[in-house]
């Protein structure tokens, strides 16, 4: 179904997530309702264990919701199988992790080119180089993650997340592993890139000041939306 510009890019309706453990089922998300429009930036805050990261996983199709519906980029992703979910992520979602998760055996350039290569895009390397330049690492293209500082690694990760110009960008504590100054640099870069690409961004953070830079703040507590 084609997505009209007025339709929300992301809609979660009564989303539940239960995980089984030895001690019995654990209710992680308990009926989340959320609508996000094109180009919006949303800061998700909440105490540890409230379900913030799980919410990102559900939106990315990495953890199947046990109840409710998740419509992203015009698709109800709760009905997709593993292969379709992989395609969905490839075509619509970019993710930035707290621990960067660059592939250690590949250079910065190759890491950035990966999503473009997976999507079968033309000129993957030229485009990856542009994205690296955009994060200020054009001269470090041939360096391996092990040869880069934490801040530089996260810049590469940002370039990689934006390389395929995804409709939705999910960022999970992107500055959690960095010192304060570097963290600020990264956040500025993140917002710059988001503005330039026009992507919809959902940022999970513990830091209220970072969340404050987003257009909208969603507070999660005990698996529910406690404030929007």
């Amino acid at each position: 179904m084609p997505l009209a510009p007025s339709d929300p890019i992301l809609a979660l309706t009564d989303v539940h997530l239960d995980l089984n453990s030895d001690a019995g089922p654990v209710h992680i998300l308990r009926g989340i309702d959320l609508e996000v429009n094109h180009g919006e930036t949303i800061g998700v805050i909440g105490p540890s264990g409230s379900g913030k990261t799980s919410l990102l996983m559900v939106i990315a199709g990495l953890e199947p919701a046990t109840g409710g519906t998740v419509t992203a980029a015009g698709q109800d992703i709760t009905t997709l199988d593993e292969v379709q979910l992989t395609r969905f992520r490839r075509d619509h979602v970019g993710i930035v992790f707290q621990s960067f998760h660059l592939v250690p055996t590949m250079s910065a350039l190759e890491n950035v080119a990966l999503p473009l290569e997976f999507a079968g895009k033309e000129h993957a390397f030229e485009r990856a180089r542009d994205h690296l330049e955009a994060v200020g690492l054009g001269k470090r293209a041939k360096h391996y993650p092990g040869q880069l500082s934490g801040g530089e690694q996260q810049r590469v990760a940002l370039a990689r997340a934006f390389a395929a110009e995804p409709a939705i960008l999910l960022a999970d504590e992107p500055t959690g592993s960095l010192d304060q100054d570097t963290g600020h640099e990264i956040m500025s870069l993140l917002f710059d890139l988001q503005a330039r690409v026009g992507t919809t961004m959902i940022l999970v953070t513990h830091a209220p000041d970072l969340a404050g830079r987003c257009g909208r703040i969603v507070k999660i507590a005990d698996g529910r939306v406690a404030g929007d």
Partner: protein
Amino acid sequence: MHSSTPSSRPSGIPTWALAWTRDWSLAWTLAWRELRAEFSNRLRGFRIFLICLFLGVATIAAVGSLSAALTAGLEADGAKLLGGDIDLRLLHRQASAEQKAYLKANSQAYSEVIKMRAMARPVDQRDKRAMVELKAVDQAYPLIGDLTTKPQRPLTDLLRKQNGLFGVVVDGNLLARLGLDVGARIKLGAATYQIRATVVTEPDRVASVFSFGPRFLVSTASLAATELIQPGSQIRYHHRLTLTPGTDQEQWKNDLATALPKAGWRVRTTTDAAPNVRRFIERMTLFLSFVGLTVLLVGGLGITGAVKSYLNARIASIATFKCLGAPGDLVFKIYMIQILTLGLVGVIGGIVIGGVGPMILFSLIGEQLPIQPVGGLFPTPLLLAAGFGLLSSTTFAIWPIASACQVKPASLFRSKIAPINTGPTWTYRIYTGVGVLLLATLCIWSANDRFFAYWFVGGSVLTLSLLRFGAALVMRGAARLTPPANALWRLAQANLHRPGAATPGIIVSMGLGLTVLVAIALIEGNLKQQISERLPDKAPAFFFVDIQPDQVETFDKAVTGVDGTSGFQRVPTLRGRIIKIAGIAVEKANVPSESQWATRGDRALTFATEKPRQSKVVKGTWWPADYQGPPLISLDAGLARGFGIDLGDTLTFNILGREITATIGNLREINWHSLRFDFAIIFAPGTLEGAPFTHIAAVEADRTIEDAVEKAATDPFPNISAIRVRDALEAAAKMLVGISAAITGTAALTIIAGAVVLAGVIASEHQRRVYDAVVFKVLGASRRRILGVYLLEYGLLGLLTGVISASIGTVTGWAVVRFLMHAEWAFLGDVVAYTLIICVSVIVTAGLISTWQALGQKASVHLRNE
């Protein structure tokens, strides 16, 4: 920024083909990026993988190349070993004048050689005597190749009559045995010869450890004077000829069969010049190849472990690939390409060493081999070894790669990504099954004996399953046992069963090699004991052959008259060949390998009125003592089963050129272990009595009177040969030592492969050991105490692995000895004890090396990192 369009599609190429190409091309690109890092790291993460693959492939390639070189040598020297292009052999009788005329008319050159066993005695030392392999040759000998002697002179000169004595050329060891020199006189039968030279090389003789005696080469012209040519004597008449170049040997054989259909000779061409040697090479190749495959199987476990360790270190990358939109099958391709590329490195290393190794070996010991091998690289065994290597690396890698592909990309959101413990999807399980089936098929297809190959494949699967089951039992037992009060024991016991324990890895990897070693050691030990201890106790001291019917009475008296002899037996015998089974020519009959011995050449036949005491009639009835009807035989029941025939069916024999068809009157179960005279085929009275037969006899005697018995039996009867059983058994034992050294040496490779895999298993859990050691230290455990826990754990594991392997190996050895070799079985405790010692030592040593490193780690570093 560039536009986000997918790659444009070239016209004319189907979409699926384009997607397929793009998928594989991307997989290759990404695989190469990962491999590039591995190569720059000197393949450190793949050393166990490469060693495992290299050992297996090199062993299979080396065994195959050795076999091919020897077989090629056999084929290249076919005409030389045969003594001509064609060899026609008759027993007891020469070819008729008409037959000889045909052979001479249809050949380029013709020669006659007569062979038999006989007793030689120095003229001047009457107490010494030796059985020799007599060979009488004409002036045309040798048709092909050269006989070299010391001193080197023309053979006709050496053998001709000079000063009233014919000359003889003998093996050097006969001179040593009888204390003679060249120039001495020696008596053979009724004739006296002068030793003129020793044999250096004999073109038509395959050197063999097992032989009834040294060579005694004389001229045919001198043979009559020996008086050894008696009716029914075990004399082999060879008629050899060379053909005009370009003659088709098979066509020549067919023409011969048409021209002289009832000659009854055994015809050999250059392609089957030395079938016994060829069979020996094939058998050795078969068993050594199985050992090589076991090395590869043990290595396969190492491959699985190494791939698993490699992927565990890359689990975050795999999750990242999936998170960025790589489908599971693309991830599978990326890692399978890497494994296959590295597998190729291991395979190439293996085939290079396996191909070149035998050449180096031949350059060192080639002279000592019974046949001259042909040097060079043999593509077929090398390709086969490469096939086994690539197939096994693929098969053993599917499971860990497909399991790693199951990693959930969501795990990237967690601080530590757990190693994969789930199995692959059903699709990949099926792929693994197909890989195992292909390996089994290749193994069976490439074996020169399918029967053994089926047993090998079945046995391997069963052994692996039993070892895995044994490991599960150990873990379950350790979990259920009440923990002992002693902390040291409690920790060691807990380490055996806790999640991620090395128990199954160690028991299966070391256990498989040890099981093979125990089984081989027990089989070899039993054979050795059989030959060197049990057989000499039961076997007679002598067998006597070529006793003429008119000598029987005096011979019996002479032998039994020696004080201390007992168990004297004597039976008539002559030789004949089975040519038809139930009316079907032997060449066309489907005879299973275990029964082919009976159709391979001439068989000893006998006739009797009474049933042999030690055999039992299991079907039909024994004939009356005065039977005089049509030809009737009593047949070994096992042979009847092999031939697929029963009472009332017929066997047709060629006996001295006459075809005799006999009906099966009864079937017997024969106890071959009794070592009493018995025959697979016994004729009823009335058929063979008219043929020229001789008698064979046996007698038991103490070692101290053996010389006296030999003298009494041979001095008055120069034509009778005495075979000392002790000498024959010693020769067999000597041969067994050589064979078992080759097999045990190769089998030791399974232990080396097992030790490599073990090192891999221990290395993979090194980090955990380090962490445990650090925590123990922090909690106040002394270094000695921690070492004690690990020593106990590895000691227990070694002992349990040894007990499980020894049990499976013992059952395997027992089954082979009892049911395949039909020999007596004895449990050899010392062999099992050695196994346990080896096992405990290897496991404890490997474990302690790793533990020692773990104990040396500073606690603070690891705690900070955590």
